């Protein structure tokens, strides 16, 4: 058994989970959504084993390091954290239908990583040889994942308001009726961001601590740093918007979607379009 086989199994499991969630939306059978959730949990577990195995394999190769050192490994870890945060929110609030809007993110990540990227284990370049890498990456990606879940929830909110705004009778029958009430979606969005924001804050702080330790500057306005700050500003705006009258609901949902778009740019766009200290090898 190798980690790469298990990652393929994971991708497949997430695909099935997503399809079953869609089947639930089409068929409206409550039992189906629990099945989809359990499949997602199974995928989460398999992927956890795969990540641990890849970690061990790197030690067997004599270049041991946590599997979070290049774009492939980080995308895989990102997918895992998305399902982890979904699992957490699902177990706590029991609105499994959001899985239909969250699992596609996890699947997309895994499919892209498995099909489009070099999956080989590489030795760590000197700049990444530090325990800070682990703290920094884990906190950042858990934060990003919570924002991904919040974005999925906000998309549901926006779809629901759009459909119900046009035709209020649609809410009675259509697939939208399976969505949680708007009030609940708004609240879940806020709760997901309440998970993500502290984690992103920790991610930025651990990043700054590492930069200070390794280069003597905790902040150098490198594009990656700046974009993480932009994301932080957007979600800080979200938090303050909620306590200002008139900014709950639709505008909050849009802010959450914009926040996630900025998050994705911070994660991928910066590496693809801008240059800086954080570019992953290759």
């Amino acid at each position, binding site marked *: 058994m190798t980690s790469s086989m298990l990652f393929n199994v994971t991708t497949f499991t997430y695909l099935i989970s997503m399809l079953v969630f869609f089947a639930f939306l089409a068929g409206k059978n409550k039992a189906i959504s629990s099945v989809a959730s359990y499949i997602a949990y199974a995928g989460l577990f398999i992927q956890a084993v795969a990540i641990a195995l890849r970690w061990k394999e790197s030690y067997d190769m004599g270049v041991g390091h946590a599997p979070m050192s290049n774009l492939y490994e980080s995308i895989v870890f990102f997918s895992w954290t998305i399902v982890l945060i979904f699992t957490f929110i699902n177990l706590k609030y029991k609105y499994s239908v959001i899985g239909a809007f969250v699992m596609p993110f996890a699947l997309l990540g895994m499919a892209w990583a498995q099909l489009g990227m070099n999956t080989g284990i590489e*030795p760590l370049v000197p700049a990444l040889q530090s325990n800070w890498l682990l703290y920094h990456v884990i906190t950042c990606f858990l934060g990003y994942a919570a924002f991904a879940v919040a974005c999925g929830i906000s998309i549901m909110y926006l779809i629901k308001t759009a459909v119900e705004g046009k035709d209020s009778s649609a809410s009675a029958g259509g697939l939208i009726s399976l969505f949680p009430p708007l009030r609940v979606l708004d609240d879940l969005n806020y709760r997901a961001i*309440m998970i993500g924001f502290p984690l992103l804050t920790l991610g930025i702080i651990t990043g700054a601590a590492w930069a200070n*330790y*390794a280069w003597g500057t905790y902040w150098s306005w490198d594009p990656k740093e700046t974009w993480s700050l932009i994301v932080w500003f957007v979600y800080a705006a979200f938090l303050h918007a909620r306590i200002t009258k008139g900014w709950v609901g639709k505008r909050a949902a849009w802010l959450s979607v914009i926040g996630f778009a900025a998050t994705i740019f911070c994660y991928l766009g910066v590496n693809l379009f801008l240059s800086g200290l954080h570019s992953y090898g290759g």
Partner: protein
Amino acid sequence: MATTEKSFVTNVWDFFCSLKLTLFLLISLALTSIIGTVLPQGSLPSEYVAQISAAKLQIYTKLGFFDMYHSWWFIALLYIFSLNLICCSIKRLPHVFKFISEPTLVLGEGMRNSFSLKKEISFTGSIEKAKERLVEFLGKEFSSPIVTEHNGELHLFAQKTAWCRLGVYVVHLSILVIFVGAIIGSLAGYKGYVSIVEGTSVNSIEKQNGQRLPLGFEVLCENFNVEFYSTGAPKEFRSILTILENGVPVPEYSKVKVIVNEPLTYKGITFYQSSYGQANEGSEHFVTVVERNGGATEKIATREGVVVTLKNGTTLKLLETTEEVRQFAPGFSGPAARIEVTEKGSTPKTFIVFKNFPEVNAQRGDALIFGYEGSNARQYTGLQVAKDPGVWVVWLGCTLMVLGIGIAFFMSHKRVWVVITKGQARIYGNASKNQAAFQMQFEEISDKFKEIKI
């Protein structure tokens, strides 16, 4: 006159207290920050200057876009941000303190109706007895209540973690603390760079602004080394440094290993491994030549770029050299040189000769076999140098921020009231955050409340 003046002042005050301004500032900071990630910052690369129009270049320069995080308008945004934060806190903090120190002991009709968490019981005993029983009950199940009599009703009030309402203000304070730390760093600290050739020492560094700064001690580079993985990727850049005071090594700072991610700090000044290279000035490289059909090996001392003419008229030019060829020629390692050989009357040939692989050098079928013996060049290590006395203030701010966010998001101010009238007692509950979790706790308490017999 006086009234309009006052209203102007109030207007300014209200402006700086408003959350609308906060939203505007947060979004403006987010949007403007993008500029500096798209345009080059600091000294401009010449290719960039060549491709941008002169007018654009002038406008961008005027607007400070090429050093935008230090431009007057960005700094001004940060000052307004701080002002907003301070004013908002000054306006709200007294209310919050009052809210904590003078809680709502008596639950009015309006609040009673607005709470969703409530339960009631009837009893036959006296009010006095009910009070005694319920005070004990609340003390045991939640926290000790304060009893107030009001319009013939008894109000029991109990609360938990009221102070967590201050969490938000800890977060806001932390931002100001971080700013203070950053300001201290920019006033009293510096960043710089120094390169030290192996076997030599320096006693000053070059600051970012080009100024030379005496250190007050010497840094000696004993040795610099790069290690590679078998794939050719670098594994470790390592300088061995010694600090000298008055020319004498400081014992604890003798032969210290400095690698990326493991800097050396002495007297508040930290040295970070950042680059390296060959100190080529004056160094000689040694190329060997031997005839294929025998004879003595000739050793030629030369420099990069110099052309040497051999006895038979063949010319030899040393193009470039490296201490470690692995990154250019996978499968090989050690020193190597690229040379250009021109036999008399033929076209020049360029090839690589290795120090560690003489058999490869010999495989070329020419009459002359060239080799490379390395050089007497030494390497230099490039060190980033930094001193930042404000960094501890920044970390204090970060700690406060994490604590504050933890308190603001994950703790809640929980309040329970019991209102006793003749023959009846009603319990109410409210939490500042996370109602769902409090609801479970409240239901547990109110279930027990229902069982009380008075």
